[in-house]
Protein backbone atom coordinates (compact mmCIF):
# COMPACT_ATOMS: atom_id res chain seq x y z
CA UNK A 1 0.00 0.00 0.00
CA UNK A 2 0.97 3.63 -0.45
CA UNK A 3 1.62 5.34 2.89
CA UNK A 4 -1.33 7.48 3.93
CA UNK A 5 -0.74 10.84 5.57
CA UNK A 6 -3.35 12.69 7.60
CA UNK A 7 -3.33 16.06 9.35
CA UNK A 8 -5.95 17.11 11.87
CA UNK A 9 -5.93 20.76 12.90
CA UNK A 10 -7.98 22.88 15.26
CA UNK A 11 -7.57 24.22 18.77
CA UNK A 12 -6.47 22.67 22.05
CA UNK A 13 -9.22 20.81 23.89
CA UNK A 14 -10.96 19.45 20.78
CA UNK A 15 -9.33 16.05 21.21
CA UNK A 16 -7.29 16.43 18.05
CA UNK A 17 -4.22 14.60 19.28
CA UNK A 18 -6.37 11.90 20.90
CA UNK A 19 -8.09 11.31 17.56
CA UNK A 20 -4.71 10.80 15.89
CA UNK A 21 -3.55 8.53 18.71
CA UNK A 22 -6.67 6.37 18.43
CA UNK A 23 -6.14 6.01 14.69
CA UNK A 24 -2.46 5.18 15.15
CA UNK A 25 -3.16 2.72 17.93
CA UNK A 26 -5.76 0.92 15.83
CA UNK A 27 -3.36 0.81 12.87
CA UNK A 28 -0.46 -0.59 14.90
CA UNK A 29 -2.12 -2.79 17.49
CA UNK A 30 -5.12 -4.04 15.52
CA UNK A 31 -3.95 -3.75 11.93
CA UNK A 32 -0.31 -4.76 12.57
CA UNK A 33 0.73 -1.77 10.47
CA UNK A 34 3.29 0.99 11.06
CA UNK A 35 2.30 4.47 12.16
CA UNK A 36 4.08 7.65 13.13
CA UNK A 37 2.25 10.42 14.92
CA UNK A 38 3.61 13.88 15.66
CA UNK A 39 1.97 17.06 16.89
CA UNK A 40 2.40 20.68 17.78
CA UNK A 41 0.38 22.70 20.21
CA UNK A 42 0.46 25.79 22.37
CA UNK A 43 0.96 25.72 26.11
CA UNK A 44 -2.74 26.43 26.77
CA UNK A 45 -4.93 23.58 28.07
CA UNK A 46 -7.74 24.76 25.84
CA UNK A 47 -7.88 27.27 23.06
CA UNK A 48 -4.35 27.35 21.63
CA UNK A 49 -3.51 26.19 18.15
CA UNK A 50 -3.17 22.45 17.85
CA UNK A 51 -2.43 20.05 15.04
CA UNK A 52 -1.56 16.38 14.76
CA UNK A 53 0.01 14.46 11.91
CA UNK A 54 -0.25 10.75 11.28
CA UNK A 55 1.36 8.52 8.67
CA UNK A 56 0.14 4.95 8.27
CA UNK A 57 2.00 2.36 6.19
CA UNK A 58 2.47 -1.39 5.89
CA UNK A 59 6.26 -0.81 5.88
CA UNK A 60 8.51 0.93 8.43
CA UNK A 61 8.24 4.70 8.02
CA UNK A 62 11.42 6.77 7.63
CA UNK A 63 10.65 10.47 7.36
CA UNK A 64 8.32 11.25 10.27
CA UNK A 65 6.45 13.99 8.41
CA UNK A 66 5.38 14.48 4.82
CA UNK A 67 5.36 17.73 2.93
CA UNK A 68 1.84 17.14 1.56
CA UNK A 69 -1.04 15.28 3.23
CA UNK A 70 -3.56 12.97 1.61
CA UNK A 71 -6.25 13.98 4.09
CA UNK A 72 -6.66 17.21 6.01
CA UNK A 73 -9.29 17.56 8.72
CA UNK A 74 -9.85 21.20 9.69
CA UNK A 75 -11.80 21.79 12.85
CA UNK A 76 -11.22 25.53 13.07
CA UNK A 77 -10.95 28.32 10.52
CA UNK A 78 -7.41 29.34 11.55
CA UNK A 79 -6.21 25.73 11.14
CA UNK A 80 -7.65 25.61 7.65
CA UNK A 81 -6.08 28.93 6.73
CA UNK A 82 -2.68 27.84 8.01
CA UNK A 83 -2.45 24.27 6.75
CA UNK A 84 -4.57 24.09 3.59
CA UNK A 85 -1.36 24.66 1.64
CA UNK A 86 -0.10 21.29 2.91
CA UNK A 87 -3.00 19.34 1.41
CA UNK A 88 -2.11 17.36 -1.70
CA UNK A 89 -3.67 18.45 -4.96
CA UNK A 90 -6.93 16.53 -5.30
CA UNK A 91 -6.59 15.46 -1.69
CA UNK A 92 -9.41 15.08 0.80
CA UNK A 93 -10.53 17.97 2.97
CA UNK A 94 -12.92 17.36 5.84
CA UNK A 95 -14.32 20.33 7.76
CA UNK A 96 -16.85 21.04 10.48
CA UNK A 97 -19.10 23.68 8.86
CA UNK A 98 -19.86 25.22 12.25
CA UNK A 99 -16.20 26.05 12.82
CA UNK A 100 -14.91 26.45 9.27
CA UNK A 101 -17.01 28.80 7.19
CA UNK A 102 -14.64 30.12 4.55
CA UNK A 103 -13.14 27.56 2.20
CA UNK A 104 -11.17 28.94 -0.73
CA UNK A 105 -11.85 27.31 -4.09
CA UNK A 106 -9.33 24.52 -4.40
CA UNK A 107 -8.85 21.25 -6.24
CA UNK A 108 -9.86 18.87 -3.46
CA UNK A 109 -12.65 16.56 -2.40
CA UNK A 110 -14.38 18.56 0.27
CA UNK A 111 -16.66 17.03 2.88
CA UNK A 112 -18.64 18.98 5.44
CA UNK A 113 -19.31 16.94 8.57
CA UNK A 114 -21.57 18.58 11.20
CA UNK A 115 -19.47 17.15 14.00
CA UNK A 116 -19.99 19.81 16.68
CA UNK A 117 -23.73 20.06 16.02
CA UNK A 118 -24.10 16.28 16.21
CA UNK A 119 -22.07 16.03 19.40
CA UNK A 120 -24.15 18.78 21.04
CA UNK A 121 -27.32 16.87 20.13
CA UNK A 122 -25.85 13.74 21.68
CA UNK A 123 -25.20 15.64 24.90
CA UNK A 124 -21.57 16.80 24.90
CA UNK A 125 -19.89 18.95 22.29
CA UNK A 126 -16.53 17.60 23.36
CA UNK A 127 -17.31 14.35 21.50
CA UNK A 128 -17.21 16.14 18.13
CA UNK A 129 -13.80 14.59 17.44
CA UNK A 130 -15.38 11.13 17.56
CA UNK A 131 -17.93 12.13 14.91
CA UNK A 132 -14.97 13.15 12.77
CA UNK A 133 -13.18 9.88 13.53
CA UNK A 134 -16.25 7.85 12.52
CA UNK A 135 -16.40 9.76 9.24
CA UNK A 136 -12.66 9.52 8.66
CA UNK A 137 -12.79 5.75 9.04
CA UNK A 138 -14.42 5.50 5.61
CA UNK A 139 -11.24 6.89 4.04
CA UNK A 140 -8.79 4.68 5.90
CA UNK A 141 -9.71 1.26 4.67
CA UNK A 142 -7.01 -0.67 6.52
CA UNK A 143 -8.60 0.15 9.87
CA UNK A 144 -12.03 -1.32 10.60
CA UNK A 145 -14.91 0.30 12.47
CA UNK A 146 -14.82 -2.51 15.01
CA UNK A 147 -11.12 -2.00 15.72
CA UNK A 148 -11.67 1.71 16.24
CA UNK A 149 -14.61 1.09 18.56
CA UNK A 150 -12.41 -1.23 20.65
CA UNK A 151 -9.57 1.29 20.81
CA UNK A 152 -11.96 4.12 21.77
CA UNK A 153 -13.37 1.94 24.54
CA UNK A 154 -9.87 1.22 25.86
CA UNK A 155 -8.65 4.82 25.71
CA UNK A 156 -11.38 7.21 26.85
CA UNK A 157 -12.47 7.57 30.51
CA UNK A 158 -15.16 5.07 31.46
CA UNK A 159 -17.99 7.55 31.98
CA UNK A 160 -17.45 9.01 28.50
CA UNK A 161 -17.27 5.73 26.57
CA UNK A 162 -20.96 5.69 25.77
CA UNK A 163 -21.20 9.18 24.32
CA UNK A 164 -17.93 8.75 22.42
CA UNK A 165 -19.15 5.56 20.77
CA UNK A 166 -22.48 7.17 19.91
CA UNK A 167 -20.66 10.10 18.36
CA UNK A 168 -18.37 7.72 16.47
CA UNK A 169 -21.37 5.80 15.11
CA UNK A 170 -22.98 9.06 14.02
CA UNK A 171 -19.82 9.89 12.06
CA UNK A 172 -19.82 6.43 10.49
CA UNK A 173 -23.44 7.04 9.50
CA UNK A 174 -22.61 10.33 7.77
CA UNK A 175 -20.08 8.52 5.59
CA UNK A 176 -22.27 5.49 4.94
CA UNK A 177 -23.48 6.41 1.47
CA UNK A 178 -20.14 7.67 0.22
CA UNK A 179 -18.33 5.68 -2.43
CA UNK A 180 -14.65 6.24 -1.74
CA UNK A 181 -11.80 4.87 -3.84
CA UNK A 182 -8.14 5.33 -3.09
CA UNK A 183 -7.93 7.76 -6.04
CA UNK A 184 -10.40 10.03 -4.27
CA UNK A 185 -8.12 10.28 -1.29
CA UNK A 186 -5.19 11.68 -3.21
Amino acid sequence: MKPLSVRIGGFGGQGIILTAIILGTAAVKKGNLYAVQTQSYGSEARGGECQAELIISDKPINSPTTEYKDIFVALFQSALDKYLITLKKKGTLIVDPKLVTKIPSIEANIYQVPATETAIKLGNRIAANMVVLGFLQKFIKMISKEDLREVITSMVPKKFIDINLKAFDAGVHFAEDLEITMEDIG
Partner: protein
Amino acid sequence: MNKNIKHEGRRIKSGIHFILGNYAVVEGALAAGCNYFAGYPITPANEISELMSKRLPEVGGIFVQGEDELFSIYSVISASLAGAKSMTATASAGFNYMQEGIGYASAVEVPCVIIDVQRCRGENFATQADVMQMRWGASGDYESIVLAPSSAQELFDFTILAFNLAEEFRNPVIVMSETTIALMRERVEIPEKESIEIYKRMYTSLTPEEYLPFKAKNNSPPEFAPMGKGYHTLYTLNYRNEDGTMDWDAQGYKKLYQRITGKISENKDKICITESYFLNDADAVIIAYGSEVRPALDAIEMARNDGLKIGMLKLITVWPIHENLIKEIAKNIRRIFVVEMNIGKYAKEIERLCLPFCPVTNITKNMGIIHTKEEIYAAIKEAW
Protein backbone atom coordinates in the same frame (compact mmCIF):
# COMPACT_ATOMS: atom_id res chain seq x y z
CA MET B 1 14.76 -2.34 46.75
CA ASN B 2 12.69 -4.81 44.76
CA LYS B 3 10.78 -5.81 47.84
CA ASN B 4 7.60 -5.94 45.80
CA ILE B 5 8.73 -9.01 43.93
CA LYS B 6 5.11 -9.89 43.26
CA HIS B 7 4.98 -6.91 40.93
CA GLU B 8 8.10 -7.88 38.98
CA GLY B 9 5.76 -9.35 36.36
CA ARG B 10 4.75 -5.82 35.39
CA ARG B 11 8.31 -4.86 34.52
CA ILE B 12 8.38 -5.95 30.88
CA LYS B 13 5.29 -5.15 28.83
CA SER B 14 5.93 -7.61 26.01
CA GLY B 15 3.87 -6.97 22.90
CA ILE B 16 3.22 -4.39 20.22
CA HIS B 17 2.58 -0.84 21.38
CA PHE B 18 1.89 2.56 19.85
CA ILE B 19 3.67 4.83 22.29
CA LEU B 20 5.51 8.09 22.76
CA GLY B 21 9.28 7.95 22.34
CA ASN B 22 9.67 9.20 25.91
CA TYR B 23 7.53 6.30 27.12
CA ALA B 24 9.66 3.86 25.12
CA VAL B 25 12.67 5.09 27.13
CA VAL B 26 10.88 4.23 30.36
CA GLU B 27 9.86 0.77 29.15
CA GLY B 28 13.43 0.15 27.97
CA ALA B 29 14.86 1.22 31.32
CA LEU B 30 12.47 -1.05 33.21
CA ALA B 31 13.25 -3.94 30.89
CA ALA B 32 16.95 -3.36 31.60
CA GLY B 33 16.30 -3.60 35.33
CA CYS B 34 16.24 0.09 36.28
CA ASN B 35 15.05 0.47 39.86
CA TYR B 36 16.00 4.06 40.68
CA PHE B 37 15.11 7.24 38.84
CA ALA B 38 15.57 10.87 39.84
CA GLY B 39 14.80 13.84 37.63
CA TYR B 40 13.87 17.48 37.62
CA PRO B 41 11.03 18.66 35.35
CA ILE B 42 11.91 20.01 31.93
CA THR B 43 10.28 19.76 28.53
CA PRO B 44 10.53 17.78 26.31
CA ALA B 45 11.70 15.11 28.78
CA ASN B 46 8.80 15.34 31.23
CA GLU B 47 6.91 12.30 29.97
CA ILE B 48 9.87 10.18 31.06
CA SER B 49 9.52 11.36 34.67
CA GLU B 50 5.74 11.18 34.46
CA LEU B 51 5.66 7.52 33.42
CA MET B 52 8.58 6.60 35.68
CA SER B 53 6.68 7.97 38.68
CA LYS B 54 3.88 5.56 37.85
CA ARG B 55 5.81 2.55 36.60
CA LEU B 56 8.74 2.38 39.04
CA PRO B 57 6.63 1.99 42.21
CA GLU B 58 4.67 -0.74 40.38
CA VAL B 59 7.80 -2.87 40.18
CA GLY B 60 9.22 -2.00 43.58
CA GLY B 61 11.60 0.68 42.36
CA ILE B 62 12.12 4.20 43.65
CA PHE B 63 11.15 7.42 41.87
CA VAL B 64 12.33 10.77 43.19
CA GLN B 65 11.50 14.17 41.81
CA GLY B 66 14.66 16.05 42.65
CA GLU B 67 14.86 19.69 43.67
CA ASP B 68 17.18 20.29 40.73
CA GLU B 69 19.43 18.58 38.20
CA LEU B 70 22.41 18.39 40.56
CA PHE B 71 20.44 16.42 43.10
CA SER B 72 19.12 14.21 40.32
CA ILE B 73 22.48 13.23 38.85
CA TYR B 74 24.23 12.80 42.21
CA SER B 75 21.44 10.72 43.69
CA VAL B 76 21.50 8.54 40.58
CA ILE B 77 25.24 8.07 41.11
CA SER B 78 24.74 7.25 44.79
CA ALA B 79 21.95 4.80 44.04
CA SER B 80 24.20 3.05 41.53
CA LEU B 81 27.00 2.76 44.08
CA ALA B 82 24.48 1.24 46.45
CA GLY B 83 23.73 -1.42 43.84
CA ALA B 84 20.77 0.01 41.93
CA LYS B 85 20.44 0.38 38.22
CA SER B 86 19.78 4.06 38.01
CA MET B 87 18.87 6.68 35.48
CA THR B 88 17.99 10.33 35.07
CA ALA B 89 16.44 12.22 32.19
CA THR B 90 16.73 15.87 31.26
CA ALA B 91 16.81 18.21 28.29
CA SER B 92 19.61 20.41 27.00
CA ALA B 93 19.42 23.26 29.55
CA GLY B 94 19.18 20.73 32.39
CA PHE B 95 21.95 18.67 30.82
CA ASN B 96 24.27 21.65 31.35
CA TYR B 97 23.75 21.42 35.10
CA MET B 98 24.46 17.71 35.16
CA GLN B 99 27.96 17.99 33.69
CA GLU B 100 29.63 18.16 37.08
CA GLY B 101 27.99 14.91 38.13
CA ILE B 102 28.81 13.25 34.82
CA GLY B 103 32.46 14.21 35.29
CA TYR B 104 32.41 12.78 38.80
CA ALA B 105 30.71 9.56 37.72
CA SER B 106 33.26 9.15 34.93
CA ALA B 107 36.18 9.75 37.29
CA VAL B 108 35.00 7.36 40.01
CA GLU B 109 33.67 4.90 37.43
CA VAL B 110 29.99 4.69 38.28
CA PRO B 111 27.57 3.04 35.87
CA CYS B 112 24.47 5.17 35.25
CA VAL B 113 22.28 6.23 32.36
CA ILE B 114 21.51 9.82 31.39
CA ILE B 115 18.85 10.66 28.83
CA ASP B 116 19.30 14.05 27.18
CA VAL B 117 16.29 15.00 25.09
CA GLN B 118 17.93 17.76 23.09
CA ARG B 119 15.90 20.89 22.47
CA CYS B 120 16.61 24.32 21.01
CA ARG B 121 17.59 26.97 23.55
CA GLY B 122 14.46 27.81 25.51
CA GLU B 123 12.16 26.17 22.99
CA ASN B 124 10.78 22.71 22.50
CA PHE B 125 12.01 22.44 18.94
CA ALA B 126 14.19 19.71 17.47
CA THR B 127 17.97 19.88 17.41
CA GLN B 128 21.14 17.81 17.69
CA ALA B 129 23.11 20.74 19.06
CA ASP B 130 24.42 18.97 22.19
CA VAL B 131 26.40 16.36 20.26
CA MET B 132 29.79 17.77 21.24
CA GLN B 133 28.78 18.54 24.81
CA MET B 134 27.85 14.88 25.22
CA ARG B 135 31.44 13.93 24.53
CA TRP B 136 33.37 16.17 26.88
CA GLY B 137 30.90 18.50 28.59
CA ALA B 138 32.52 18.08 32.00
CA SER B 139 35.99 19.16 33.10
CA GLY B 140 38.82 16.66 33.35
CA ASP B 141 39.82 13.64 31.33
CA TYR B 142 37.28 11.03 30.43
CA GLU B 143 35.63 9.31 27.49
CA SER B 144 31.89 9.21 27.01
CA ILE B 145 29.69 6.50 25.64
CA VAL B 146 26.83 8.12 23.72
CA LEU B 147 24.10 6.29 21.83
CA ALA B 148 21.82 7.96 19.27
CA PRO B 149 18.40 6.40 18.68
CA SER B 150 16.39 7.37 15.60
CA SER B 151 12.94 6.05 16.54
CA ALA B 152 10.74 5.13 19.46
CA GLN B 153 11.78 1.51 18.95
CA GLU B 154 15.44 2.46 19.19
CA LEU B 155 14.76 4.58 22.27
CA PHE B 156 13.55 1.35 23.85
CA ASP B 157 16.38 -0.80 22.47
CA PHE B 158 19.24 1.63 23.11
CA THR B 159 18.12 2.44 26.64
CA ILE B 160 18.61 -1.24 27.43
CA LEU B 161 21.95 -1.15 25.61
CA ALA B 162 22.92 1.94 27.62
CA PHE B 163 22.36 0.15 30.92
CA ASN B 164 24.38 -2.83 29.72
CA LEU B 165 27.33 -0.76 28.48
CA ALA B 166 27.26 1.32 31.68
CA GLU B 167 27.62 -1.81 33.79
CA GLU B 168 30.19 -3.48 31.57
CA PHE B 169 32.52 -0.46 31.45
CA ARG B 170 31.61 1.18 34.78
CA ASN B 171 30.93 4.45 33.00
CA PRO B 172 28.02 6.81 32.56
CA VAL B 173 26.21 6.22 29.27
CA ILE B 174 24.26 9.01 27.61
CA VAL B 175 21.29 8.34 25.39
CA MET B 176 21.10 11.21 22.94
CA SER B 177 17.40 11.72 22.43
CA GLU B 178 15.80 14.55 20.50
CA THR B 179 12.48 16.41 20.55
CA THR B 180 11.72 14.76 17.22
CA ILE B 181 11.63 11.19 18.49
CA ALA B 182 10.82 11.89 22.14
CA LEU B 183 7.45 13.46 21.33
CA MET B 184 6.61 11.10 18.47
CA ARG B 185 4.28 8.15 18.85
CA GLU B 186 5.36 5.06 17.01
CA ARG B 187 5.15 1.32 16.84
CA VAL B 188 7.33 -0.26 19.52
CA GLU B 189 7.75 -4.01 19.86
CA ILE B 190 8.74 -5.10 23.33
CA PRO B 191 10.16 -8.61 23.23
CA GLU B 192 9.62 -11.39 25.73
CA LYS B 193 11.69 -11.20 28.89
CA GLU B 194 13.79 -14.22 27.92
CA SER B 195 15.11 -12.60 24.76
CA ILE B 196 16.27 -9.38 26.45
CA GLU B 197 19.96 -9.55 27.33
CA ILE B 198 20.88 -7.94 30.61
CA TYR B 199 24.42 -7.34 31.83
CA LYS B 200 24.57 -8.18 35.51
CA ARG B 201 26.99 -6.35 37.79
CA MET B 202 29.86 -8.53 38.94
CA TYR B 203 31.23 -8.12 42.43
CA THR B 204 34.71 -8.91 43.70
CA SER B 205 35.46 -12.29 45.20
CA LEU B 206 38.20 -10.75 47.39
CA THR B 207 37.75 -10.12 51.10
CA PRO B 208 37.59 -6.51 52.42
CA GLU B 209 41.22 -6.91 53.56
CA GLU B 210 42.45 -8.02 50.13
CA TYR B 211 40.25 -5.74 48.03
CA LEU B 212 41.79 -2.68 46.30
CA PRO B 213 38.91 -0.57 44.96
CA PHE B 214 40.71 1.01 41.99
CA LYS B 215 43.02 -1.80 40.99
CA ALA B 216 42.18 -3.02 37.51
CA LYS B 217 43.71 -4.52 34.40
CA ASN B 218 44.83 -2.13 31.64
CA ASN B 219 41.93 -0.60 29.77
CA SER B 220 39.41 -2.24 32.07
CA PRO B 221 37.18 -1.09 34.90
CA PRO B 222 37.90 -2.25 38.46
CA GLU B 223 35.72 -4.74 40.26
CA PHE B 224 32.88 -3.48 42.41
CA ALA B 225 32.58 -4.35 46.07
CA PRO B 226 29.11 -4.66 47.55
CA MET B 227 28.00 -1.75 49.74
CA GLY B 228 27.37 -2.40 53.41
CA LYS B 229 29.47 -5.57 53.57
CA GLY B 230 32.58 -4.21 55.22
CA TYR B 231 34.32 -2.83 52.15
CA HIS B 232 35.24 0.80 52.67
CA THR B 233 35.81 2.83 49.55
CA LEU B 234 36.19 6.57 49.27
CA TYR B 235 34.71 7.60 45.94
CA THR B 236 36.54 10.87 45.53
CA LEU B 237 36.97 13.01 42.46
CA ASN B 238 40.56 13.64 43.55
CA TYR B 239 43.39 11.46 42.44
CA ARG B 240 43.45 8.26 44.42
CA ASN B 241 45.74 5.27 44.44
CA GLU B 242 44.62 1.73 43.73
CA ASP B 243 43.84 1.25 47.41
CA GLY B 244 41.70 4.39 47.41
CA THR B 245 44.04 6.64 49.39
CA MET B 246 44.47 10.23 48.26
CA ASP B 247 48.23 10.82 48.03
CA TRP B 248 49.21 12.65 44.85
CA ASP B 249 51.35 10.57 42.55
CA ALA B 250 52.07 12.00 39.10
CA GLN B 251 52.80 8.61 37.56
CA GLY B 252 49.75 7.12 39.23
CA TYR B 253 47.56 9.97 37.96
CA LYS B 254 48.77 9.39 34.42
CA LYS B 255 48.15 5.67 34.73
CA LEU B 256 44.69 6.12 36.27
CA TYR B 257 43.41 8.30 33.45
CA GLN B 258 45.07 6.15 30.82
CA ARG B 259 42.97 3.33 32.14
CA ILE B 260 39.75 5.34 32.60
CA THR B 261 39.91 6.65 29.03
CA GLY B 262 41.49 3.50 27.64
CA LYS B 263 38.69 1.25 28.83
CA ILE B 264 36.48 3.13 26.34
CA SER B 265 38.86 4.12 23.54
CA GLU B 266 40.60 0.73 23.39
CA ASN B 267 37.33 -1.20 23.39
CA LYS B 268 35.74 0.52 20.42
CA ASP B 269 35.11 -2.75 18.65
CA LYS B 270 32.73 -3.65 21.45
CA ILE B 271 31.23 -0.23 22.00
CA CYS B 272 30.94 1.29 18.52
CA ILE B 273 27.83 0.06 16.79
CA THR B 274 26.86 1.11 13.28
CA GLU B 275 24.44 0.10 10.55
CA SER B 276 25.34 0.20 6.87
CA TYR B 277 23.05 0.79 3.91
CA PHE B 278 24.13 0.21 0.30
CA LEU B 279 27.84 0.63 1.04
CA ASN B 280 28.93 -2.08 -1.41
CA ASP B 281 28.51 -0.12 -4.62
CA ALA B 282 28.38 3.40 -3.17
CA ASP B 283 30.19 6.28 -4.89
CA ALA B 284 29.32 8.55 -1.96
CA VAL B 285 28.22 7.93 1.61
CA ILE B 286 26.01 9.80 4.04
CA ILE B 287 27.04 9.70 7.69
CA ALA B 288 24.09 10.43 9.98
CA TYR B 289 22.92 9.77 13.51
CA GLY B 290 19.67 10.09 15.45
CA SER B 291 16.44 11.14 13.79
CA GLU B 292 18.27 12.56 10.77
CA VAL B 293 18.92 8.99 9.66
CA ARG B 294 15.26 8.78 8.66
CA PRO B 295 14.91 11.47 5.99
CA ALA B 296 18.47 10.57 4.88
CA LEU B 297 17.32 7.02 4.09
CA ASP B 298 14.40 8.38 2.06
CA ALA B 299 16.77 10.74 0.24
CA ILE B 300 18.98 7.76 -0.65
CA GLU B 301 15.98 6.03 -2.16
CA MET B 302 15.25 9.13 -4.26
CA ALA B 303 18.91 9.32 -5.33
CA ARG B 304 19.12 5.65 -6.24
CA ASN B 305 15.93 5.95 -8.30
CA ASP B 306 17.77 8.62 -10.28
CA GLY B 307 20.85 6.42 -10.66
CA LEU B 308 23.07 8.09 -8.03
CA LYS B 309 24.87 5.39 -6.09
CA ILE B 310 24.82 6.63 -2.55
CA GLY B 311 25.00 4.68 0.70
CA MET B 312 24.79 5.43 4.39
CA LEU B 313 26.66 4.76 7.58
CA LYS B 314 24.27 5.15 10.49
CA LEU B 315 26.05 5.78 13.76
CA ILE B 316 24.32 4.16 16.71
CA THR B 317 27.31 4.92 18.91
CA VAL B 318 28.18 8.56 18.35
CA TRP B 319 30.93 8.61 21.01
CA PRO B 320 33.47 7.13 20.96
CA ILE B 321 33.70 7.78 17.23
CA HIS B 322 34.38 4.71 15.08
CA GLU B 323 37.56 6.16 13.56
CA ASN B 324 38.92 3.14 11.70
CA LEU B 325 35.64 2.25 10.03
CA ILE B 326 34.99 5.82 8.91
CA LYS B 327 38.53 6.17 7.50
CA GLU B 328 38.20 2.88 5.64
CA ILE B 329 34.96 4.01 4.05
CA ALA B 330 36.44 7.38 3.08
CA LYS B 331 39.34 5.69 1.25
CA ASN B 332 37.04 4.00 -1.23
CA ILE B 333 34.49 6.65 -2.17
CA ARG B 334 34.29 10.04 -3.87
CA ARG B 335 32.55 12.06 -1.19
CA ILE B 336 31.11 11.94 2.30
CA PHE B 337 27.98 13.82 3.31
CA VAL B 338 27.28 14.56 6.97
CA VAL B 339 23.61 15.17 7.73
CA GLU B 340 22.86 16.78 11.08
CA MET B 341 20.47 19.16 12.82
CA ASN B 342 22.82 21.83 14.20
CA ILE B 343 25.42 24.27 12.88
CA GLY B 344 27.56 21.36 11.63
CA LYS B 345 29.42 20.02 14.64
CA TYR B 346 29.97 16.31 14.16
CA ALA B 347 30.91 17.10 10.56
CA LYS B 348 34.16 18.62 11.85
CA GLU B 349 35.04 15.31 13.47
CA ILE B 350 34.28 13.52 10.19
CA GLU B 351 36.43 16.04 8.32
CA ARG B 352 39.30 15.32 10.70
CA LEU B 353 39.11 11.64 9.77
CA CYS B 354 38.18 11.80 6.10
CA LEU B 355 39.71 14.89 4.51
CA PRO B 356 42.96 13.20 3.54
CA PHE B 357 40.91 10.70 1.53
CA CYS B 358 37.81 12.44 0.16
CA PRO B 359 35.88 15.72 0.41
CA VAL B 360 33.24 16.13 3.12
CA THR B 361 30.00 17.99 2.43
CA ASN B 362 28.00 19.24 5.31
CA ILE B 363 24.19 19.04 5.07
CA THR B 364 22.99 20.93 8.11
CA LYS B 365 19.67 22.36 9.18
CA ASN B 366 19.46 24.48 12.28
CA MET B 367 15.84 25.64 12.31
CA GLY B 368 14.25 23.53 15.03
CA ILE B 369 12.92 21.01 12.57
CA ILE B 370 14.19 17.80 10.98
CA HIS B 371 15.34 17.75 7.36
CA THR B 372 12.90 16.68 4.70
CA LYS B 373 14.08 14.04 2.26
CA GLU B 374 13.75 16.61 -0.52
CA GLU B 375 16.14 18.99 1.23
CA ILE B 376 18.75 16.28 1.70
CA TYR B 377 18.45 15.04 -1.85
CA ALA B 378 18.74 18.58 -3.25
CA ALA B 379 21.98 19.06 -1.28
CA ILE B 380 23.33 15.74 -2.56
CA LYS B 381 22.58 16.62 -6.17
CA GLU B 382 24.20 20.02 -5.81
CA ALA B 383 27.50 18.51 -4.69
CA TRP B 384 27.43 15.39 -6.90
